[in-house]
């Protein structure tokens, strides 16, 4: 030994060591050691994390879709009005909001008056008729637009007011005045930069005077231009333009969002009574609430979410079973290591912690890989298919972390227990 002086420390005479619970510092030390063990068997660790990665990738996509749908619903609710409700003439199921088929003449002005009376303290009620693609003309400018005939409650019912000029009022309604209010797009199409207020236009060959122009609402989430509309008094519409004796829609703006449910039920009961509909018979009108619309859209995406979620769960579980078996295998290879560590003073709990940490770490790495892979469809699909909303939210990461560490812990327990149970004498043999 080249004659070096041995400076060995004197034998220790420390007091009896106290046994205490695994402290966080120690658990961290063991976890770091476990990370080193994983690093030294990178290939195996990669195999172990693939299943988790695939599961989390699917989960990320599903959560992304779900978040995208929720934000789309939010946009639609905002456009529709979160406190709004629509009653349409005619029963039966109609898809989405776009069903504008002119059918049903069951809603009479008397119904509107009755609803308005009953709900006067809780909601603003406006009756409405809408017709698509009516030819309009100003000077030598011809175009087509949707014409809405609505009673004077329109601004309050839609929270939509004039930007210039004056709104349609009670006098216009009473006198069936030939006056109109223009949406911003119509105003621009007919008059460019000119002020439309006071100008004359032809609506379906009937002459009208422009009273005002509405504030711009822009395009809704379905790509429909809400400003491409023209508004006339309800009475004028019914008698002078469309020649009908019923309204198409009643729009309610409920003052307190909590009242939406009860108001809907009360209105249903009132209209059924007025229309003499017997119990068991279908309504001859359709009530549309923001909740209804939201559910409709959710229903469409739910199937995709369920299938994706089920696939994610299966992939995750299969992946973790693979992980568990690789871990079990690696434990039988590492028996001498376990024996050595026990001899050096590792308690059963230390061995358990090390192996559990390995499986949780592998799961977390798999999660990171899975989230990265899962973000690709979340970011790319909406670009390719604008109808398929997907969004990245914190939920993606929260769920991914939660699921992978939970599953990693659950499937890591058995191998870790097996490692911890090994008898040190046997293991060292």
């Amino acid at each position, binding site marked *: *030994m*080249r004659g*070096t*002086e*041995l*400076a*060995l*420390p*004197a*034998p*220790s*005479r*420390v007091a*009896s*060591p*106290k*046994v*205490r619970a695994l*402290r966080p*510092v*120690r658990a961290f*030390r*063991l976890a770091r*050691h476990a990370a*080193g*063990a994983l690093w*030294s068997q990178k290939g195996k660790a990669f195999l172990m994390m693939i299943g988790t990665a695939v599961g989390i990738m699917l989960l990320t996509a599903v959560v992304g879709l779900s978040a995208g749908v929720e934000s789309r619903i939010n946009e639609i609710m905002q456009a529709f009005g979160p406190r709004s409700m629509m009653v349409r003439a005619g029963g039966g199921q109609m898809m989405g909001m776009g069903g504008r088929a002119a059918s049903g003449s069951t809603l009479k002005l008397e119904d509107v008056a009755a609803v308005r009376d009953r709900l006067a303290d809780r909601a603003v009620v406006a009756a409405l008729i809408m017709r698509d693609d009516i030819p309009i003309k100003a000077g030598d400018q011809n175009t087509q637009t949707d014409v809405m005939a609505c009673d004077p409650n329109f601004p309050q019912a839609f929270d939509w007011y004039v930007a210039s000029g004056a709104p349609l009022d009670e006098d216009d309604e009473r006198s069936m005045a030939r006056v109109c209010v223009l949406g911003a797009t119509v105003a621009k199409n007919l008059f460019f930069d000119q002020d439309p207020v006071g100008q004359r236009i032809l609506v379906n060959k009937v002459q009208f005077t422009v009273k005002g122009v509405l504030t711009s609402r822009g395009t809704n989430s379905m790509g429909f231009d809400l400003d491409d509309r023209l508004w006339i008094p309800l009475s004028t519409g019914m008698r002078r333009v469309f020649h009908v004796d019923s309204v198409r829609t009643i729009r309610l703006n409920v003052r307190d969002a909590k009242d939406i449910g009860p108001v809907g039920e009360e209105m249903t009961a009132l209209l059924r009574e007025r229309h003499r509909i017997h119990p068991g018979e279908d309504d001859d009108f359709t009530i549309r609430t923001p909740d209804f619309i939201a559910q409709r859209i959710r229903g469409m995406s739910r199937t995709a979410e369920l299938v994706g979620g089920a696939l994610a769960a299966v992939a995750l579980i299969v992946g973790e079973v693979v992980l568990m078996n690789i871990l079990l295998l690696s434990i039988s290879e590492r028996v*001498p*290591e376990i*024996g*050595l*560590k*026990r*001899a*050096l*003073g*590792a*308690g*059963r*709990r*230390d061995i358990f912690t090390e192996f559990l940490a390995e499986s949780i770490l592998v799961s977390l790495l798999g999660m990171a890989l899975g989230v990265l892979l899962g973000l690709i469809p979340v970011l790319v699909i909406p670009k390719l298919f604008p109808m398929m909303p997907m969004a990245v939210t914190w939920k993606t990461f929260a769920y991914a972390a939660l699921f992978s560490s939970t599953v990693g812990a659950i499937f890591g327990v058995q191998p870790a227990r097996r490692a911890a149970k090994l008898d*040190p*004498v046997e293991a*060292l043999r």
Partner: protein
Amino acid sequence: MIELRGLEKTYHTGGVDTPVLHGIDLDIEEGEFVALMGPSGTGKSTLMNILGCLDRATGGTYTLAGQDLTALDDNQLSAIRNRRLGFVFQLFHLLPRVSVLQNVLLPFLYTDPYPSDAKERAVALLKTVGLEDRMAFKPNALSGGQQQRVAIARALVNEPALLMADEPTGNLDSVASKEILDIFDRIHAQGRTIIMVTHETDVAAHASRVITLKDGRVASDVRRN
């Protein structure tokens, strides 16, 4: 330092009792270098496992440095191994994936609180076994003798009261064996208590006391000097 009183060990397998140790009474003083000898199957390994707190006796008492270890549970025995004992194995038992230095530091993974001078201690020990220029190497890059020297440094890093060696030269050639035994001599000269299992009388010649077991009993107990 060590007091064994009526130490018994009986294995129960399949309803059959196999007694291995039949009441061993033994005192080992601090600073002794004991060689434990005897033919295989006489309970040497069993006795070493009990002395090393890896196994428990089924009868009698074991007192180490004034502390009765007979009734301790697995956790407490683990802590005793970690603080009071050092192990040197015939097959070295180094962790191949970490460096020589990390191997020496391994016992501290299980020590609370982690000693602030852990690294200094490990480096100092590697110097004393002549491996200061191999600290960053992986064990596989070392010769058998060098690996066993790393193992000795690891066994001493927690300043154990008792160093246990199970045929430490059993897997080494004569040159490496001599190096290792020289180190054991120097550890002994420092006053540390050593128990070493061996089959070879020339290895046992380094010890200050030779205990021979036969059929689970102490057959002879010879002190030198």
